[in-house]
């Protein structure tokens, strides 16, 4: 493993000047757009729109030539890190390589140019994809049925919580509390609040797992359910998951699986067999649909048999005739999406699942877990593991000791790593770990790249220890399009549009 790994520090850039805004490049009267020759009567706007509705002045948009439009946005892409450029070990985000053949599927006109209100006879191919995807997701999670409507993980969480409410309401019970561990993702408590539930937080024990004793104390007849990620956000498998689920079920609650970390367990263990009742998946993590700089994603939610009747509708189904149609479950919680979910994202996930298959998915998890454990062991003595036991698909390290010794903070490690050709890991999460570095290499990074990442992380720590200070790292990054960004200034003096700029703001 001595071959050079996939550092992105070789990426060529033309310099570190700022890119002007598209509004700065605008010249009144310049035009890129052109339209079909219509042959229609050339009625004026005054003929078409009554005066009381009509704008007196057009909205000002940038006026640029197509050549300049291309140059501007291409230069912006040269100021942007991406999975295609290099390793992206953001813990909890599963930034694996996104296969190009899945993108190609999503650009086929037979999928991309279909109107969502088309009658079922015209969309049999689409419905078959969605039904097969639902079946595959159920096979992976050990569930009975799934909705594909939620547009992202957080929407999936809210869906799951609404399903819990519908289930308890249907049983004539009014339950008001949801239990979440103190290691949970921020979307969990935010979704719980939006669903109209109160939150009870359960602690983490000395092994980094849910504190079962504490859980039993806080359970009661008013608990609607518990949300849990497994492996949890410390990258650790909840060893007592069967006991946790049994305790929640005994109290009449439901178990919700946050699928953010599903990449660790494909074909190894299914959430259904762990005792979960509701599962959301982030297809933009586990099933490699590209994240688009922040979205789109898709957050399908799968449920046990007894919850199927509450799923959102209308949902694609296989009809007795062998063709495909829509059906709304008897006690459906309603509609969660204007149409059928983020269909082109779901198509990519379907393609990814076919390309990997049962054998490939198991290998995905095998190697994701292997890479994370190798990295954790390789960095032993450099950074401290938050909990020193075998991890699953990611490891949480702490820079706390280094920070005390040299002043090197997790943030400095992150920024210095950018200079060395890697995206930073997730930092300061989970909240219960001081100076946390949450690193998820994923299975698509070669042993050489993981080794190079480890080397870079070691180099950063060694530099600080040798100097007895973190001065060098605190000046990082110096090779990126901009240096450290003044976030406080952005919040204090808000400029969120070009029109809010003024001379003072630029000074």
């Amino acid at each position: 493993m001595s071959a050079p790994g996939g550092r992105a520090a070789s990426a060529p850039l033309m310099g570190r000047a700022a890119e002007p805004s598209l509004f700065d490049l605008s010249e009144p009267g310049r035009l890129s757009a052109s339209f079909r020759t219509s042959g229609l009567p050339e009625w004026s706007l005054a003929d078409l729109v009554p005066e009381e509705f009509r704008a007196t002045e057009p909205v000002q948009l940038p006026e640029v030539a197509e050549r300049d439009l291309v140059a501007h946005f291409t230069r912006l892409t040269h100021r942007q890190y991406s999975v295609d450029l290099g390793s992206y070990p953001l813990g909890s985000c599963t930034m694996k390589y996104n296969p190009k053949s899945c993108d190609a599927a999503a650009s086929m006109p037979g999928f991309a140019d279909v109107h969502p209100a088309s009658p079922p006879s015209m969309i049999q191919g689409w419905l078959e994809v969605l039904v097969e995807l639902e079946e595959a997701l159920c096979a992976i999670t050990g569930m009975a049925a799934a909705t594909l409507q939620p547009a992202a993980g957080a929407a999936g969480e809210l869906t799951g919580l609404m399903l819990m409410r519908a289930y308890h309401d249907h049983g004539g019970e009014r339950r008001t509390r949801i239990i979440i561990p103190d290691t949970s993702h921020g979307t969990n408590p935010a979704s719980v609040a939006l669903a109209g539930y109160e939150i009870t937080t359960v602690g983490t024990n000395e092994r980094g797992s849910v504190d079962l004793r504490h859980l039993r104390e806080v359970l009661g007849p008013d608990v609607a359910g518990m949300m849990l990620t497994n492996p949890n956000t410390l990258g650790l498998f909840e060893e007592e998951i069967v006991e946790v689920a049994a305790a929640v079920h005994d109290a009449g609650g439901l178990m919700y699986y946050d699928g953010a970390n599903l990449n660790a367990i494909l074909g190894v263990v299914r959430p259904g067999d762990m005792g979960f009742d509701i599962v959301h998946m982030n297809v933009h993590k586990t099933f490699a649909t590209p994240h688009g700089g922040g979205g789109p994603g898709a957050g399908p939610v799968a449920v046990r048999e007894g919850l199927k009747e509450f799923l959102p509708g209308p949902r694609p189904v296989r009809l007795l005739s062998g063709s495909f149609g829509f059906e709304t479950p008897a006690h459906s919680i309603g509609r969660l999406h204007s149409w059928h979910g983020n269909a082109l994202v779901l198509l990519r996930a379907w393609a990814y699942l076919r390309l990997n298959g049962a054998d490939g998915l198991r290998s995905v998890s095998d190697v994701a877990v292997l890479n994370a454990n190798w990295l954790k062991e390789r960095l032993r003595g450099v950074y401290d593991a938050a909990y020193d036991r075998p991890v699953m698909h990611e490891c949480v390290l702490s820079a706390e000791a280094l920070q005390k010794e040299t002043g090197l903070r997790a943030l400095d490690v992150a920024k210095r790593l950018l200079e060395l050709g890697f995206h930073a890991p997730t930092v300061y999460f989970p909240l219960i770990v001081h100076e946390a570095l949450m690193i998820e290499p994923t299975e698509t990074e070669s042993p050489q790249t993981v080794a190079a990442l480890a080397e870079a992380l070691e180099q950063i720590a060694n530099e600080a220890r040798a100097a007895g200070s973190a001065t060098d790292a605190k000046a990082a990054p110096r090779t990126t399009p901009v240096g450290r960004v003044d976030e406080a200034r952005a919040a204090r003096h808000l400029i969120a549009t070009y029109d809010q700029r003024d001379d003072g703001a630029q000074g």
Partner: protein
Amino acid sequence: MNAPFVPHTDAEIGEMLGFLGLSSLDELFSVIPEAIRLAGGLDLPDHWSEADLRDRLEELAAANMPVGRHLVCFAGAGAYDHEIPAVVRSLASRSEFVTAYTPYQPEVAQGVLQALFEYQTMIARLTGLEIANASLYDGAAALVEGVNMAVAAAGHSTVLCSDGVNPRWRRQLQTFSKGPGLEIVHVPLADGVTDWGSGAAAAAGRVGAVVVATPNFLGCLEDISAARRTADRLGARLVVVFDPVAAGVLKTPGSLGADIVVGEGQALGTPLSFGGPYLGLFACRLADVRRLPGRLVGETLDVEGRPAYVSTLRTREQDIRRERATSNVCSNQTLMAVTAAIQLGWLGTTGLVEVATRSARAARYCRESLLALDGVESAADAPVLREFALRTPLQADTVIDRMLEEGFLAGTVVEEGFIGTHYAGSLLVATTERRTRTEIDSFVAAFDKAVR
């Protein structure tokens, strides 16, 4: 390795396991209780080659009917067949935009951040408000967030929602209203536009949000000032659902008194895509920015004093504020927002006016031609822009089925959300700047046969 995207050789796996003191991959999972482990692997077929995948995709795609030359699109209802030029498809599919994550490290995410800043500026201008966020999932999700923001700001939980709002969005609002405990009061339409003087509107108390759409679901232009007066009378915030294409020629909702403007941005460069991923547009007043849902990009400086962009006012967001966050949104639709910025850059000031004007010309020509047919009547007489509702002698779904055989997607049936109203069963037809006189003439000729 059996996984096509795992680079490790068997020898490398052996070496890495050796480093960990393990002798098999299974041992990596020894912490998982034996009783719950999956014996025998997943119940799925083994992996396919890329070529096999492509063959299957082609079969499935052939079982769909996309719009195009062989199926000319006259359907809208929230999803429109507007021009998407090659330059937009090309730039928006660049892998730096497609395969980036959320810009948590601004120093290496200036590309996405600056594109979003430009997008925010364009959406703020189109809505006539000061602040636009970096996108939400789609128009319906933006409506739900807008209503949540309005009721939180106003401190009242009743929502007065016009029946002119897309019925599927209204259903979604209903679904999401249970958690925050909102009461949705529906305000009926009269002659295609909202009747603010109706009993439902008059009887409502403790109203936090008034919601109106323009053009509305039936294509009719609404009097936003009347909605503003209703909101003022009730002490509520005014949420306007707008259309970014219509914004090319209509007065901005902000200038007419909207507090929050939401909309569907699919028309700005995103293909029909069987309904998603689309783009949720969201704008509000500067005074309300601390309640804004979703991400917001701001301009600032780097350590060397150069302009730089960064996600800002982050303390509103779920990963920091957790249960006190203004919204649970994390992933959004950044790629569609970047696409919209490119599309609007391609259109420019006059291009957007052209799209709206040409769409309106096609609608007027098509509507007048159809109304000249025997038995075809207007379902709503208020002024329209690029979409309109008709009553047909035969049931609208039969007309749609017959028109499919003639190579037209004739529109959508107005039903869900309108049952029991005068509009139920009417046919909703939309035209964009892509419809030509030849297409419309053929459409009308086929329609004449299909309705009898």
